[in-house]
């Protein structure tokens, strides 16, 4: 990937992070930690990879994205808003009673959201359904879904994985946001899903392990997934929960807590500095 492209995607990732902080601050609740850890992925998918059109969000050949870890809605909303699906200003209405931006994504309310999610394990099954639909239409579109590492504790994930491999759904790419933290602690402490790559390999996936904050590695992984025939691909992304905000990084308490005013200012200042550095 050339530097111009990388810089552009890095800027979009910072803007997604700004949206995450802005929306959760105004909502006074939400899940910033696991939203911040997928900013690079969403930047790459929505600003580089996916065939989507904000002017025609339901077009039948669009690539599908399912946020199986639905609590990372602030990241998805920020990506969609910045991509032009709805006004960025609306991010401030997140979780408010009169807003269409629900705490977890609703496909019937939000342009660009392909599937309602929030109950862990269910999004990946729907993504598998999309991939099956694509297969039945001569691989009309590609399907991307992102799961949390804690989400791998849900049995439905493995039902879906078994099915996807059995049906040879090679238009499907499953990303795992392996930030190592879930609500009750580290994933090892709670109910270890490790080793993750071996599990997906055993279920019949092509497995690629990358640094989920590195655009070059994201590009290579997604290109390899697109070349893969006969089986789905799992991209295990090693990430940092809370990435980009100094005091949130690797802190489990930022899984489901919103920044207060002073914290909001610090976070926005940090992101502003990151943006300025990139634009310099």
């Amino acid at each position, binding site marked *: 990937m050339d530097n111009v492209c990388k810089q552009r995607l890095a800027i979009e990732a910072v803007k997604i992070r700004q949206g995450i902080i802005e929306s959760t601050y105004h909502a006074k609740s939400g899940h910033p930690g696991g939203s911040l850890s997928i900013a690079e992925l969403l930047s790459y998918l929505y600003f580089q990879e996916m065939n989507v059109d904000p002017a025609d969000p339901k077009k039948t050949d669009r690539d599908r994205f399912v946020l199986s870890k639905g609590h990372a809605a602030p990241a998805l909303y920020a990506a969609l808003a910045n991509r032009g699906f709805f006004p960025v200003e609306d991010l401030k209405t997140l979780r408010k009673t009169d807003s269409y931006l629900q705490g977890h994504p609703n496909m019937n309310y939000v342009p660009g959201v392909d599937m309602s999610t929030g*109950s862990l394990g269910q999004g990946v099954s*729907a993504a*598998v359904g999309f991939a099956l639909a694509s297969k039945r239409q001569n691989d009309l579109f590609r399907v991307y879904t992102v799961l949390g590492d804690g989400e791998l504790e849900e049995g439905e994930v493995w039902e*879906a994985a078994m*099915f996807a491999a059995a049906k040879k759904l090679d238009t499907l790419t499953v990303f795992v946001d392996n930030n190592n933290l879930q609500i009750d602690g580290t994933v090892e402490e709670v109910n270890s899903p490790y080793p993750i790559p071996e599990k997906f390999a055993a279920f019949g996936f092509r497995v690629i392990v990358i640094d989920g904050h590195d655009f070059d590695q994201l590009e290579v992984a997604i290109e390899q997934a697109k070349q893969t025939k006969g089986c789905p691909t799992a991209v295990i992304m090693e990430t940092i929960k809370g990435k980009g905000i100094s005091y949130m990084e690797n802190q489990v308490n930022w899984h489901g807590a919103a920044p207060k005013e002073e914290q909001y200012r610090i976070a926005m200042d940090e992101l502003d500095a990151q943006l300025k550095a990139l634009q310099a």
Partner: protein
Amino acid sequence: MAEIIRTATRDAYGKALVELGGLDPNLLVLDADLAAATKTGMFKKAYPERFIDCGIAEGNMIGVAAGLAASGFTVFCSSFAMFAAGRAFEQIRNSLGYTHLNVKIGATHAGVSVGEDGASHQCCEDIGLMRTIPGMTILNPADDVEARLAVLAAAKHDGPVYLRFGRLAVPRVFDETYCFEIGKGVYLNEGTDVTIIASGLLVERAIAAVELLKAEGISAALINMATIKPLDREIVLDAARKTGCIVTAEEHNVIGGLGSAVAEAVAEALPVPVLRVGVQDTFGRSGPALELLELYGLTASNIAENAKRAIALKKSLI
């Protein structure tokens, strides 16, 4: 006298799917390793390329159905009522109900008439579970004629539908002139003393109950309520107004099913006695289906007894 035709509603379901498959090239049928029993196997045989076996993973099957429906396919998916409504409840609630996607759940082997497999497989809670999901339509046909019409209507209906079918062969109640409409109850008999509101397998038994009551000089109206949700409140209130008491009859726990739905409608608008014939908040057991229906009081005589009790209760309240 013409010979009585006996068919399980699940058989009619399988046949109707084959019929639909010829009409709608966008129709896909999913099952969870029970195609032979749910009768989706008939569709599999006719249209193998449009049949998808999801294996023994009902939750995932519902999610896959959601993804297919969101891509424009009409999807029927099947398992036993226990594993569809029960095991996959939350997937149905969140991935089909909340999304209001066009997926039809063909749930077979509902109720105690599953028979020898016993309580683990005899789902008497499914209607209660499905009723609590906003926007869900619930159809519980009484015989093969109505089952076919319910499947065809469900396919045309926008949004999720839960269709409840039985394992046991039941006598045909309706002839080819019968008209089925989602959301409409149908009077099968007019009467003045009491109204019996029945659904599914209990309709045939309610017809027999009407005859038993008639022999005792009691005039019982009978309504077939194939749509449990949305409930036909108009016909329920009409019955309450005309006869002043109601007996419901269903092969389901009396908590949460047709009886509950009717009692709620009546209590809120025109309070009259409502007695509920059904499984009395208990689990089933193994045994031949017909013996179990007797054991749990799902009989014409018990419906008739409850009708007399309802009439007595009505008179005591005047």
